[in-house]
Structures are given as structure tokens and as C-alpha cells.
């Protein structure tokens, strides 16, 4: 079995395990206030890190694609204007693809 397959299978089974733990573990364990607070903040940290890493981290060096950054910035503007997730997604890829086509 290749490393890629192993990574995919472990990630898949462990992700399911995390969901199963949520509906199976005693509520008192999961509902501890401090645990809840960290759990609420964790996606914020991970998603923020993923956005900037996707845009600027090219494995040990800083690199950015102008059209991609502009597309995601257009998506951010759409979010600020209260657009839906689907609209944000479409605006980001359309702006990126258009800028890339004309440059």
C-alpha cells in the first residue's frame, strides 16, 4: 500500500471516529466550558491558517499567484457584502480564471 493510500485511509477512518466520539461520549466530558471554548476557537485558527497558507506558502518559501489572491479578495468583498457561500465561491474562481486568461 502506498503512503498516499495510507494517509487517505487513516484520515478517513479517524475523521469518522471523531464524529462517532461526539455522538457516543458522555456529554459532560465534551461540554466542559474550557473544552467548548477551545473547540469553538480551533476552526477559526485552522481556517485562517489554511487561507493564508493556500495563498502565500509554497513549501518553505513565500510565493503568491496574483490572480488567485485577487480572486479570493473578491470573494472576501462578496462575504463582506453578505453574499452566500456559493456566490463567494463562484466569484473567487471566475475572477481568478478571468485574470489568468487575460494576463
Amino acid at each position, binding site marked *: 500500500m502506498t503512503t498516499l493510500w495510507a494517509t487517505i485511509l487513516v484520515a478517513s477512518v479517524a475523521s469518522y471516529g471523531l464524529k462517532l466520539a*461526539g455522538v457516543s461520549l458522555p456529554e459532560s466530558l465534551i461540554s466542559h466550558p474550557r473544552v467548548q471554548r*477551545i473547540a469553538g*476557537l480551533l476552526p477559526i*485558527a485552522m481556517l485562517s491558517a489554511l*487561507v493564508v497558507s493556500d495563498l502565500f506558502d509554497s513549501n518553505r518559501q513565500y510565493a503568491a499567484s496574483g490572480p488567485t489572491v485577487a480572486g479570493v479578495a473578491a470573494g472576501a468583498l462578496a462575504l463582506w457584502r453578505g453574499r452566500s457561500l456559493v456566490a463567494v465561491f463562484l466569484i473567487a474562481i471566475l475572477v481568478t480564471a478571468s485574470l489568468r486568461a487575460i494576463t
Partner: protein
Amino acid sequence: MSFVNEHQAIFRAAAGIGLYAGAFGLTFGAVATAAGLSVIQAVVMSAVMFTGASQFALVGILGAGGAPLAALSAALLLGLRNTFYGVPIARLVRPRGLRRASTAHFVIDETTAMAMAQPTVRAGRRAFWATGITLFALWNLGTLGGALIGSGINTSAFGLDAAAPAIFLALLWPQLAREHGRAVALGAVIVTLSLVTAVPAGVPIIAAAAVAIFAGLLPSAASRRPEDE
């Protein structure tokens, strides 16, 4: 709201979510094959892992040349939120025995949001299953289609490299209102960017988790001023 109207409203909302799951599934399939996964690997991920943000994170880090362990850790740290969604869902659905295993698979952002938005227990359960099953079917169909098409196209020409960061940003946006939300986001950005040249791809993202843990351990304003709650 009458039973029929309530029923229709839930299925209309589930159909809308299904449509968007299909579009994101297509994107995931294309991005995954562009990152080096085979069609079958992309499909297995969507069927078994079935948690979109973690899937995008995993293939994104692998595609950027990150180590498998880094990609795995980031995906699971992100997937940990599903554990916490399980508490209100278990209270609502009250699954017993084998039902617990099938309920767990559908505990994700969209099903939790839809189930919790319903006025009654019966509507909440119906919304949970309707959203979960529709989303699962279309997410997987989309992934298969995207993986088949994606292996033959230049995904960056279609702007698909902007898809994952745009989706992450859209998921992040409403959460910034949480206590310490903006500070944690800013801290995570600083930690991630300052580690870029020091460690391999993926590791800066995992390091950002420390910001959330640190902020979560700080005394909360709510516990200091209970009268504000």
C-alpha cells in the same frame, strides 16, 4: 407552520444544499486529482471521510508538497469540530445501537446547522436526515464527476486554485463574531506566515492550533461577568 408546509420547506432547503454540495464536490474531485490523487482515492475520501473542509485541507497540503503527517494532523484538527456537533445532534436524534454509527457519519456543518434551525424535534430530525442524505449523495456524485473531468483539465486555468481558500474564508467569516474570534484569526495568520520558511508545508497550519488553545485557556469575559450572559 402546518405539517405539509414544514415538510416542503425542509426538502426545498435540502435540495438547495444538495445543489451546492454537487458544485463543491465537482471542485473537490478536480482539485484532488490535480493534487495527485487517483479517481478512486478522491471517491473513497468523499464517501468515508465526508467532511469537506478537512478533505480540501488534506489534498491542499499534500498538493503543496507537505508531509502526510502534517496533512493528516491539519485535517483532523479541523475535523474535531464535528465531535462537538455530535452533542446537540445526539440529544435531538437520540440514536441507539447501530443507528449511532449511521447518525455519526452525517454529523457535519450543514446537517447540524439545518437540524438546529428547526422549531420542533420532529422537524429537526427530518431536516438532519434529509440534509445528510442529499448532501452525501451529491457530494459523492460531484466528486466522481470532478475527479473524472479534473484529471483531463488544467484546474488553475479554471481558477479552481482559488476555490479552497475562498471556501475556507466563507466558513471562517461568521465565526469571527465569537469571543476572541478576530484575535485568534489574526494570531493564526501571524503564526502561519512567520513559520513559512522555517518548516515544511502544512506544519505552520498545525502550529496555528496553539493560538486557539492558548486563547481558549484564557479566562472568558462571560465567566468574569456572569450578569452579561
